[in-house]
């Protein structure tokens, strides 16, 4: 049973460009959350998708957007990249959208913005 997978593993972009990161949830999971982890810090919640809709959002600008597909996979899009967007982007999936769902994390996509 495959766990959470993310692609690509690494990515280099320049300022002002746009990027799309992809996530496939663990089998049987229908909720996907995205996190940004800067070096030396903990993951910061970007947003969560359930039933193809954004259900919760953290303190991130509108440059960060996402999508969830009918097969529960998800994309994170970041427009007008800034140097400060360089980070590890983690995707986490869970079985239910609710209170005590256990999240399973993918290995992340490391984004470097030059």
């Amino acid at each position: 049973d495959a766990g959470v997978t993310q692609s690509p593993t690494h990515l280099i972009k320049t300022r002002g460009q746009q990027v799309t990161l992809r996530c496939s949830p663990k089998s049987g999971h229908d909720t996907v959350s995205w996190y940004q982890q800067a070096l030396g810090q903990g993951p910061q919640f970007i947003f969560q998708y359930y039933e193809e809709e954004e259900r919760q959002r953290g303190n991130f600008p509108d440059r960060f957007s996402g999508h969830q597909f009918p097969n529960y996979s998800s994309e994170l899009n970041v427009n007008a990249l800034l140097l400060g967007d360089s980070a590890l982007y983690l995707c986490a999936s869970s079985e239910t959208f609710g209170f005590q769902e256990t999240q399973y994390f993918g290995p992340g996509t490391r984004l470097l913005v030059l």
Partner: protein
Amino acid sequence: DQQVKQNSPSLSVQEGRISILNCDYTNSMFDYFLWYKKYPAEGPTFLISISSIKDKNEDGRFTVFLNKSAKHLSLHIVPSQPGDSAVYFCAAKAGKSTFGDGTTLTVKP
């Protein structure tokens, strides 16, 4: 303002001894707390959790304690093993999850 703080960036213990990792939070709306372990090049892995209606939860070598009046959470690992060496994150939930910055645990053989 950081709502979840792990004040010790690193901790080193001897194999077989107890490891105690601490976490403080400020938001009284948090009602569920979790600990994750992270190895290099991997995503965080869920370890153990506790609801705000409890003060202790055990799972094998791992025990989480919650002191709501002090807004303090701790993870005890007994006995510590070299394979426990990793970065440990505490997280608190009020809807979304808020993570601390992590504590790097090194267990020496």
